[in-house]
């Protein structure tokens, strides 16, 4: 047996059929690593089909996790790949690093399976060009699992479904992970199914012991614990769950009932599901008949005085546009969460992209400004969902929060917040001072933020609506002069939100010639790339946008300071287009539209050439 390799971080990728339990295996290993003091970032990568034909390339489901210290991304390439069948290997071979470890199920590499995966020779490793560069660890996962459970009296199908636990046992041995913790997580997962718990525990333990007894002649890993994290209580949280929690916290802190109107859509559905489960905390989350109704029920609840939210993905945002315009016109606080996916149309429902930015900014009829913000990590979805709510309630404006499939489904370490330390939220509700002659347009003349009054409040009755109103009387008005004034007022109201936004920070080498600019979910990859560039002697600065409309007040100062500015984003240049209009100068672009996050390697390579 080789010496345990000490490393700062390691990337493990589990892959198999979409029914092989790869997401569960990956999640368990991630939790296990975090509990032992590692930082983690995960990247579930799964097909749109729930159960694609077995053994085919289209049905391969993957789960990648990066564990260790200084983790900002799920990693470009894998140190360890677990492949449950030839199709999974074929799809994922390209992520294998030189000298990485490949664990595969020999029982699934028969002639039939090879043919299904489209191999043309009988040696998959030479065919994929990895036979010389990768440490092969062949294990009869299927047979060994069957052997392990032979006395359990389970049907063959259920037995085979446990083989992912054998693989996890092997991985636990490889990474010196104590089994008792893994069994503890299994206990939570199968709390209501004691027979399955027993079977999975047995297979997991047998997998671990098998590797131990065999003294596999491969690298084992000792991964460093995170050393620069603030002390506190931590958990692992997926972006969509963090988003839901941020909304719940904002509801509590603002004293407004939290209402969600939503319609199931990949990859945003988790937000609906999380909030539907929060009746205990008084959250009214309803699943309605369509996307339009999701937005409209939220607008109704906002008219009634709630923190009102709708959640969706790109196609849903398109359907909600008209109603969003109504919220602009009626000056109602609503939060719209768009968990972006590959488009246009149905596009790539399970893959990530940043292609809804221009739709969020401009995708409505008329001059229709809204606040647009974006989260940058799975865990900061909590913060930005909270801030989206705060901005909406304090400024009587719709706010669109952009996250994406990568953030929503991925997970990260999250330090549990103290709710009392979150920023205060002061909804802009009308008081006695506005009662006399209250109208739908009664507003703070300085900020242009109108006052919120809702049914049930005596003395504040008013009529609101989607028709243009007279600036002074709130009566329906078709006057051109008045319309121009109202258009400017709505723009000014959104613009003044910048007064309360944090400044844009610059990371990396502030004095570099080159500034890397990103927004939203690319933060981790861009930061890692910039760190690497600076470490390799290529001075690079980095500015990342979470607040997009309005921009932070110092955005211009930052952007004009650098000789070269390269905007990196997962689309064809939407932020670059936007920023050119806001802060005109020359911008370089680096774009990727492959339904996948950036890799740090490709960013580094490209930025070096600038």
């Amino acid at each position, binding site marked *: 047996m080789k010496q345990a390799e000490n490393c700062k971080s390691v990337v493990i990728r589990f892959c198999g059929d979409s029914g092989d339990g790869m997401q569960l295996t990956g999640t368990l290993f991630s939790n296990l690593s*975090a*509990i032992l*003091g590692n930082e983690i970032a995960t990247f579930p990568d799964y097909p749109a089909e729930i159960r694609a034909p077995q053994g085919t390339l289209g049905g391969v489901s993957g789960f990648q996790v990066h564990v260790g210290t200084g983790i900002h991304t799920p990693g470009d390439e894998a140190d360890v790949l677990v492949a449950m069948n030839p199709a999974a290997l074929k799809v994922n071979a390209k992520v294998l690093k030189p000298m990485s470890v490949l664990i595969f199920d020999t029982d699934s590499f028969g002639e039939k399976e090879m043919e299904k995966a489209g191999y043309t020779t009988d040696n998959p490793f030479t065919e994929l060009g990895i036979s010389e560069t990768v440490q092969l660890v062949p294990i009869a996962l299927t047979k060994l699992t069957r052997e392990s459970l032979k006395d359990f009296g389970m049907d063959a199908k259920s037995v085979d479904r446990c083989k992912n636990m054998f693989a996890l046992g092997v991985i636990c041995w490889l990474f010196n992970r104590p089994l008792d913790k893994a069994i503890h997580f299994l206990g*939570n997962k199968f709390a209501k199914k004691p027979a399955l718990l027993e079977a999975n525990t047995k297979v997991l333990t047998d997998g671990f012991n098998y590797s131990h007894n065999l003294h596999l002649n491969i690298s084992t890993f000792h991964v460093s614990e*995170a050393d620069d994290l603030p*002390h*506190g*209580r*931590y*958990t692992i949280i997926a972006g969509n769950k963090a988003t839901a*929690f941020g909304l*719940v*916290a904002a509801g*509590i802190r603002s004293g407004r*009932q939290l*209402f969600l*109107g939503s319609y199931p859509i990949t990859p945003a559905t988790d937000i609906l599901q999380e909030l539907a489960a929060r*009746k*205990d*905390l*008084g959250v*009214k989350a*309803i699943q*309605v*008949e369509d996307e*339009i*109704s999701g937005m*409209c*029920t*939220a*607008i*109704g*609840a906002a*008219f*009634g*005085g*709630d923190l*009102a939210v709708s959640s969706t993905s790109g196609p849903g945002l398109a359907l909600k546009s008209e*109603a969003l*315009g*109504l919220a602009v016109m009626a000056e109602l606080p609503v939060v719209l969460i768009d968990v972006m996916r590959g488009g246009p149309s149905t596009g790539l429902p399970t893959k990530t992209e940043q292609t809804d930015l221009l739709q969020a900014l401009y995708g409505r009829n008329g001059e229709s400004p809204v606040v647009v913000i974006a989260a940058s990590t799975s865990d900061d979805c909590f913060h930005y969902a909270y801030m989206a709510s705060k901005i909406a309630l304090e400024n009587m404006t719709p706010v669109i929060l952009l996250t994406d499939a990568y953030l929503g489904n991925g997970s990260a370490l999250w330090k*549990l*917040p103290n*709710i009392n330390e979150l920023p205060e939220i002061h909804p802009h509700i009308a008081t006695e001072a506005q009662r006399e002659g209250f109208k739908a347009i009664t507003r703070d003349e300085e900020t242009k933020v109108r006052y919120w009054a*809702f*049914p*049930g*409040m*005596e*003395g*504040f*009755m*008013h*009529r*609101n*609506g*989607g*028709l243009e109103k007279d600036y002074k009387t709130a*009566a*329906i008005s078709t006057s051109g002069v008045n319309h121009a004034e109202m258009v400017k007022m709505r723009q000014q109201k959104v613009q003044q939100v910048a007064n309360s936004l944090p400044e844009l920070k610059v990371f990396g080498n502030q004095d570099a010639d080159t500034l890397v600019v990103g927004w939203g979910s690319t933060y981790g990859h861009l930061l890692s790339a910039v760190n690497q560039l600076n470490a390799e002697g290529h001075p690079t600065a980095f500015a990342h946008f979470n607040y997009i409309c309005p921009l932070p007040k110092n955005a211009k100062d930052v952007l004009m300071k650098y000789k070269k500015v390269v905007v990196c984003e997962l689309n064809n240049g939407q932020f670059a287009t936007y920023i050119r209009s806001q802060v005109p100068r020359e911008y370089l672009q680096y774009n990727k539209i492959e339904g996948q996050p950036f890799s740090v390697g490709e960013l580094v390579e490209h930025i070096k050439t600038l």
Partner: protein
Amino acid sequence: MFTNKDYKSDQAVRWCPGCGDHAILNSLQKAMAEIGVAPHQIAVISGIGCSSRLPYYMNTYGFHTIHGRGAAIATGLKTAHPEITVWQATGDGDCLAIGGNHFIHSVRRNIDINVLLFNNRIYGLTKGQYSPTSPKGFVSKSSPFGTVERPFNPAELLLGARGTFFARTLDVDLPTSQMCMKAAALHKGTSVVECLVNCMIYNNGAHSWIASKEDRADRTIVLEHGKPMIFGKDRNKGLVLDGWDLKVVTIGENGITEKDILVHDAKCQDPVLHYKLAMMQAPDMPIAMGVIRDVECECYDEAVANQMAEVQAKSKVKTFDDLLGTLEQWDM
């Protein structure tokens, strides 16, 4: 105590002179005074179209929204705040064409809102195109050779969506309108009052068959729960079942007495007879007016609130910290 004036806003009413909507507005304000809910506890929500201007004329909370979405916006408001009385004003286009999906789903959920469905069988605000309730062959600006499609009867949709309340009235018949509106307000669930209204400009005479008071007695039947289905100038006509069909008979002819006449049961869960009544057509049958269906059923907003109370009584999660406590966690 309130009078109809308490529900009148200071806005000038801008419907065309002679439009049936004026009469419905007056009936609504009078009915509201009798119902007695304070104006600030009421929200009137509408979509787009002539009838959807109604909220501007009400001295309540009002929201004039977007085309077809009134039902969805009303659903959000009522679910969030069941304590508010919610009325929805909508038209045949707003409700049955662009807003059809929201309409059937609000009816299916039985959310406790009161819907005034102004049916003039035409698109007025866009100046005269046919609507989903225009009769087949109807000539309009968008159907210069007559429509080739079959119209909806709103009651069909409502009953198909398992609706619990349906009433019908005519713009000029103020007593029936107020009666229907009061019954709608009392009913827990989605109450739909189809208001047959005339459009002077683009579909004048939409309901001319029953417009005059003299004709109305013979050509309509105003249904009342628990009362025999008798109608006519001389109160001598009635409805009986003939096999599966409704039939008009004359009391005193062929040995028919009042005892033979059907008694209206609006509270009957089985919708079959309500459907037959609502679908009666001229000239052979009288048009059914009044409260056709009014059955009890749990309403959505109440069910949502009840479920929340049940969960809260059982759950150990009372605060945000409790919620965090449910997560797998560790110190680092």
